């Protein structure tokens, strides 16, 4: 580790400043966006591991219901699995980790617009996470509602809902501040010459994400507050006994939680848009279209929340409208898929680990998106709603989309963050296990769902047994893959070879500074004179 403090050009951002006696205090008090990002990354991956273990146990217990855990514990497991993976890992995910570390560097700034508010978001994230953990171990039973906290059950269950909901509330506040910070940063802090359309695609997606964070998260905050008020003071906005309407809870909840899907997936698309050009040595095809489609997804994504509620008793008119708008979202997503593939086409491809993950993203996310169209249309939805098909679909989108892109980004930026190279060989072995396991695990959920297996059930009739066994076996491969991937990365932090400033031949600004960067990103603020992906296309075509 000690060597990480030194780069060929002086002290890196890991080096102690000596302002505080304890390293942990120094880090917690730091306003350096890279340090905050690295801390976020560590926290996120830790929570991710916990979530994976819970998911693994859920799958294991489904081999033969009851042999591992009882029904109540099972309910608590899937609630926790959902709350941790969604609120603690994937929603904050890419913006807080990679966004923090790389957004200022990519636009040629020394830090974000409000470094202290950035630190405040990090503290709030830690606080929120601790409150959620508290809900597990405090007196009473852990939350058992599922991650959606549907009223009126969430108002009546004796489990520790208030604590968990409060934790999510605090996390939401952290997310709002991050979004606000990033949007202001992109508006005010771009380097001279860095016009909007010279900005790399990743900041573009962070910009769109920031807006979604600002304009959707407050709705979740107020909704969760209603639950707490309902539990403490008996305010019955969603309680039919008191004149309330439970369906309104679902409206308010999905008003945030659908756009939240875009908070997860937009920056994921940004990472892929960075990786694909670098490893195919071509400018990002249709760069403007990719950037604009990010905004398009963000805007249309606001108006589709109702497709989570087709079977909840909404009016027919509303269902038809929501279904129609849902189909519209597919258009900008499709634009992106086509552009990535077109970038690869006739490129000089080097199939390194980041590109392997990026390509698996394109494939997996397409499956997730296309199954989304199946359940976005009204008639199939009636059959598939609340089945394993939904579970398969959103794992393809969230894990196969956002999750894989985090792995892609982790491999792509690992040399820059740590100053070390990882073993390409083990990265590929890990990827193979992960990829195969992923599809066995979640594709069998599509089949199970079509056959009618309901989600969240502890037990099932014998005809679903085969499907569950296959799916669980997939989870073993997936887990093995993750162990190899993270083992490789962890080992490389300590024993990996020193990384050069630009191991991949990237052209964006982060590759112009040492690995790992100094605390001050740039000695001199760069002046930007060209677009983000200046690859010499003619030369690429000439190489055999």
């Amino acid at each position: 580790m000690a060597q990480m403090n030194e780069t060929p050009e002086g002290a890196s951002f890991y080096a102690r400043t000596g302002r505080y006696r304890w390293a942990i205090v120094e880090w917690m008090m730091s306003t350096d966006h890279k340090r905050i990002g690295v801390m976020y990354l560590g926290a996120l991956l830790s929570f991710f591991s916990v979530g994976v273990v819970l998911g693994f146990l859920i799958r294991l217990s489904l081999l033969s219901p009851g042999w591992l855990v009882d029904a109540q514990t099972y309910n608590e497991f899937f609630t926790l699995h959902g709350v941790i993976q969604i609120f603690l890992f994937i929603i904050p995910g890419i913006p807080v980790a990679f966004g923090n570390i790389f957004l200022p560097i990519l636009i040629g700034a020394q830090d974000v617009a409000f470094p202290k508010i950035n630190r405040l978001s990090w503290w709030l994230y830690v606080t929120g996470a601790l409150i959620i953990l508290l809900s597990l171990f405090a007196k009473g039973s852990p939350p058992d509602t599922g991650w959606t906290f549907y009223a009126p059950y969430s108002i009546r269950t004796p489990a520790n809902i208030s604590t968990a909901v409060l934790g999510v509330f605090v996390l939401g506040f952290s997310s709002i501040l991050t979004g606000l910070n990033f949007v202001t940063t992109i508006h005010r802090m771009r380097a001279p010459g860095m016009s909007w359309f010279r900005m790399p695609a990743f900041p573009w997606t962070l910009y769109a994400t920031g807006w979604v964070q600002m304009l959707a998260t407050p709705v979740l905050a107020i909704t969760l507050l209603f639950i707490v008020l309902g539990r403490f003071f008996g305010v019955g906005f969603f309680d039919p006994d008191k004149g309330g309407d439970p369906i309104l809870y679902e409206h308010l909840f999905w008003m945030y939680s659908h756009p939240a899907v875009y908070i997860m997936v937009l920056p994921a698309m940004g990472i892929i848009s960075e990786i694909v050009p670098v490893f195919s040595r071509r400018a990002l095809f249709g760069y403007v279209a990719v950037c604009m489609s990010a905004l398009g997804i963000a805007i249309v994504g606001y108006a589709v929340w109702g497709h989570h509620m087709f079977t909840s008793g909404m009016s027919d008119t509303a269902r038809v409208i929501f279904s129609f708008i849902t189909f519209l979202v597919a258009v900008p997503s499709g634009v992106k898929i086509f552009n990535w593939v077109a970038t690869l086409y006739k490129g000089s491809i080097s199939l390194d680990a980041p590109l392997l993950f990026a390509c698996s993203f394109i494939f997996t996310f397409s499956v997730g998106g296309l199954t989304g169209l199946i359940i976005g249309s009204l008639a199939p939805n009636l059959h598939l709603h609340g089945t394993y098909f939904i579970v398969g679909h959103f794992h393809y989108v969230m894990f196969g989309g956002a999750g894989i892109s985090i792995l892609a980004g982790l491999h792509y930026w690992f040399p820059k963050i740590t100053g070390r190279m990882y073993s390409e060989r083990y990265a590929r072995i890990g990827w193979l296990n992960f990829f195969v396991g992923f599809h066995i695990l979640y594709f069998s959920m599509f089949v199970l769902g079509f056959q009618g297996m309901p989600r969240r059930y502890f037990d099932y009739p014998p005809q679903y047994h085969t499907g569950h066994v296959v799916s669980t076996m997939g989870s073993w491969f997936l887990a093995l893959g993750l162990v190899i991937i993270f083992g490789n990365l962890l080992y490389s932090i300590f024993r990996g070879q020193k990384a050069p400033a630009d191991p991949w031949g990237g052209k964006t600004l982060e590759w112009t500074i040492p690995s790992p960067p100094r605390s001050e990103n740039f000695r001199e603020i760069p002046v930007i004179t060209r677009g983000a992906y200046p690859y010499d296309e003619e030369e690429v075509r000439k190489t055999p």
Partner: protein
Amino acid sequence: MKDPSAETHIVATRTYAVVWLALLALLAATLAVARLQLMARYSVLGSLLIATAKAGLVLAFFMHLKYEGRFLKGLLLLTLCALTLFIGLTFVDVWYR
């Protein structure tokens, strides 16, 4: 970068006083509309319109929106559109249920 919001603009005390008087006048008006049942059928609409006029005055003068660039006004409009969209689409459900 051309940035109209960067210039400081000191609004005259006189302007503020006039705006304040206008706000109080609107308050009296909305009270009158409600009490005297001037527009019985449209009283809700009427009082909301007056409220919007008041909010508009506060936004334009007290919050200096009048002197801001088109950029900020556009973003405020975007936010209000998002809210309208949320309320509108929820009503599509409630109306036809």
